[in-house]
């Protein structure tokens, strides 16, 4: 082996199963050279709940990405505006499979375009919360001492304010548009991510491998960035998946409250709910359909997140 030294960083997953060696080996494992993430993924593949979650999420993402091709009508078009009467909104027909709404827009198209808006808001706001939370949590977890105390008290302060209230205030200050909704939802998540990461880092810092790394003479920065942080990210990433679900719901809630701004015909699930209120007695499907979309999407992300959490559970890990 020494005659042909492999590359400095051996390619992790290309390993053919080698002989289980060492004098104190246990029965050879077939799954050689698998990182924890790979193992988690393998475990998730066998879980029906994870598969259901993944299918829902995949469908949602596909619909959002392919909206221009899937949707029968453009985003803000009102093709059926001549069919609307004050007392009657036409239901499903061959031309409009899920019927029309108050403005004469095709509901199916609206739902499809709405998926796109929800995906953008959900993903961007979660990323925002994740980035902010990791930065704040890293600060607290890496330095400890008074930095930790100061940062965490500030985080506690943020947590003490009800998240919807905070989001509403942010949206109110930043103006009524989608960007402010994204910022509002993202900022609200920062303290949650920060807390999780800090707690996880504190636990990891006590592990022997961190002591061993310090004994090797690595600087504190290296120990933190290459050992403590990567090992602490598991719960944070699980949380991010779960936050995607709540972000979709909260985006709908903020739009429902009218904080999203823009024209009433703009396709967004929350806004569709707002509009449906007035017509609840004559066309309940206008409220049911977007509600169902929100619930199913949130359910998909939640199932995926929960099974990811289970797959990454250290107790499962050890049992293999």
């Amino acid at each position, binding site marked *: *082996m*020494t005659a042909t*030294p*492999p*590359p*400095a*960083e*051996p390619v*992790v997953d290309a*390993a053919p199963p*080698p*002989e289980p*060696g*060492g*004098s*104190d*080996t*246990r029965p050879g*494992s077939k*799954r*050689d*050279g*698998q*990182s*924890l993430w790979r*193992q988690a993924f393998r475990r998730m593949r*066998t879980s029906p709940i994870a598969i259901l979650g993944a299918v829902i999420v995949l469908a949602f993402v596909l619909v959002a990405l392919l909206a221009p091709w899937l949707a029968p009508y453009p985003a803000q078009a009102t093709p059926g505006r001549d069919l609307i009467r004050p007392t009657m909104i036409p239901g499903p027909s061959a031309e409009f499979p899920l019927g029309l709404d108050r403005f004469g827009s095709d509901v199916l198209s609206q739902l499809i375009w709405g998926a796109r808006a929800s995906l953008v808001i959900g993903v961007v706001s979660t990323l925002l919360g994740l980035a902010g939370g990791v930065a704040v949590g890293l600060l607290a977890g890496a330095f400890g001492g008074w930095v930790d105390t100061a940062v965490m008290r500030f985080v506690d302060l943020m947590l003490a304010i009800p998240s919807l209230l905070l989001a509403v205030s942010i949206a109110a200050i930043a103006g009524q548009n989608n960007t402010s909704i994204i910022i509002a939802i993202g900022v609200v998540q920062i303290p949650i991510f920060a807390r999780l990461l800090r707690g996880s880092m504190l636990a990891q810092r006590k*592990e*022997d*491998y961190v*002591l*061993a*790394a*310090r*004994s*090797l*003479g*690595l600087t504190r920065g*290296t120990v933190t960035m290459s*050992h403590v942080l*990567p*090992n602490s990210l598991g719960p944070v990433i699980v949380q991010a998946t779960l936050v995607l679900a709540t972000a979709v719901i909260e985006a709908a809630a903020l739009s429902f409250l009218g904080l999203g701004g823009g024209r009433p015909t703009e396709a967004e699930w929350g806004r569709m709910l707002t509009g449906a209120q007035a017509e609840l007695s004559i066309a309940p499907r206008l409220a049911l359909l977007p509600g169902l979309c929100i619930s199913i999407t949130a359910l998909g992300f939640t199932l995926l997140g929960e099974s990811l959490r289970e797959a990454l559970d250290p107790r499962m*890990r*050890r049992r*293999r």
Partner: protein
Amino acid sequence: MSAQDDAVTTPRDDEAPALLQVRDLEVTFTTDAGPVVAVSGVSFDVRAGQTVAIVGESGSGKSTVAAAVLGLLPRNGRVTAGSVTLDGQSLLGLSQRRLQRLRGRVLGLVPQDPMTNLNPTATIGRQLVETLEDTGTASGKEARDRAVELLTEAGIGQAEERIAAYPHQFSGGMRQRALIAIGLSASPELLVADEPTSALDVTVQQVVLDRMEQLTAARGTAVMLITHDLGLAADRASDVLVMYRGELVESGPALTLLREPTHEYTKRLLAAAPSLASRRIEIAKQTGAEDAVEGDDLLARTDGHETGTDEPPLIRVENLRKVFPGARRGLFGREPDVVAVDDVSFDMPRGRTVAIVGESGSGKSTVARMLLHLLEPTSGRVLLEGQEVDARRQADEIAFRRRVQPVFQDPYSSLDPLFTVFRTIEEPLRAHGYGDARTRSQRVYELLDQVALPAAMARRYPAELSGGQRQRVAIARALALQPDVVVCDEAVSALDVIVQSQILHLLADLQERLGLTYLFISHDLAVVRQIADHTCVMEKGRIVEQGPTDVVFDSPEEPYTQRLLAAIPGRSLELSL
């Protein structure tokens, strides 16, 4: 040991029928990877009043046998063949309700971990009374009185008051005694004790086992003792069963088994068990047959009194002291400070092994961390070749780190789970700018070879290695920078005996080849006896006795050392060499 005498003197054929009969037991677990047979073809008898020990390493199936007998197999486990008969009644296929009625009254259990097996929210008394009432042994006031009695019998003083205590107010040894009291409360005919003392310090272990022996002897209770320690099994049981990979490889009267093992695995186990090895050293000394001792490559060089030469020690520890501030209490108050290490001094001569032994909480790991500069001492100094290391100067610190490296206890937590073996060993080389990628890679494979791991291991992650393999990786990482001193903090304590002995041999071999100096921290005197040249005994933060290992072990002066030594299992065994 009366039980032992019985077994040796009485012929085994004309006995009363066995209390417990296990025949061709097979247990299968359903796992992700399909059915796994954990135990197969296990047959044995336990007669009334007899103590039988099942010995094996982790994963040998010994606890599974116990669980099968008790009907407590986990949900994915099933008895797929064989029979378990108690008093002529088959235990397999009994309904949960019938089984429940047997538990406590006929079958008792002393579980493994005293820290987690008591309900933390209920008093000890309530847990005892509960057992007494549920088994219908006693009720009301009578149950309470009986609980006090049982605790007293189990060796807990002032039981009248202690009965109102919660588990967290008890020490580990006291909890285990309480668990024994609970296990015996309804006077079962068979008590299954699953590693009852492996979580306890040796001195406590001895007291607890003595007490258990007295109680079961008085009641005529048969005991099925599950343990990994062959010395302890031989000490306590009349018959020993040896299990290996789910099969019973050998069984027989304890002494016969120790003197004339027939199966290869038993021989390996015998050779590896530190308690027995230490006993063999002792017998060899007495009979003057020192050459006959197996594993003498581990032995400290007894001839070597050249320690007294003029060469200064590689490391000198002077008056080390560590005080941890007490926990805050209220706004301004504090608990009293905790002196973890008090005035500890010793020398580490080059190329030798210095051991620190002590029970948990004696401060030995704190000494190790201060020596590694991972913890700032409150006062005192650590001198490397007569020079004090100034931790504030980074160059000094890095130079120090290159020369002094640790190997930690828990092979499960001392490696970064996200790093491959290659990256783990390469990391120190890279951090200290050792050559280019190519030379580093060569060095990694050289190190793997030194710790006897195949090169293919380099791609694996820690989760894919066994405990012994992980510890080898940790040793390879420690050796990467060619240090002079390696601090082994309980480095072999978490390993099975055979693996433990392999790692000890590896350490001894590396010491010889590379001229390493070891600081060996351990609670296991038997291991220390095998590997150390110089031994320091710590109690409550102080070194109470130190000297050459042979002197400390052969003529201990301090009563504490004497107690520790007396508590090594297997001390009274007459082994052949």
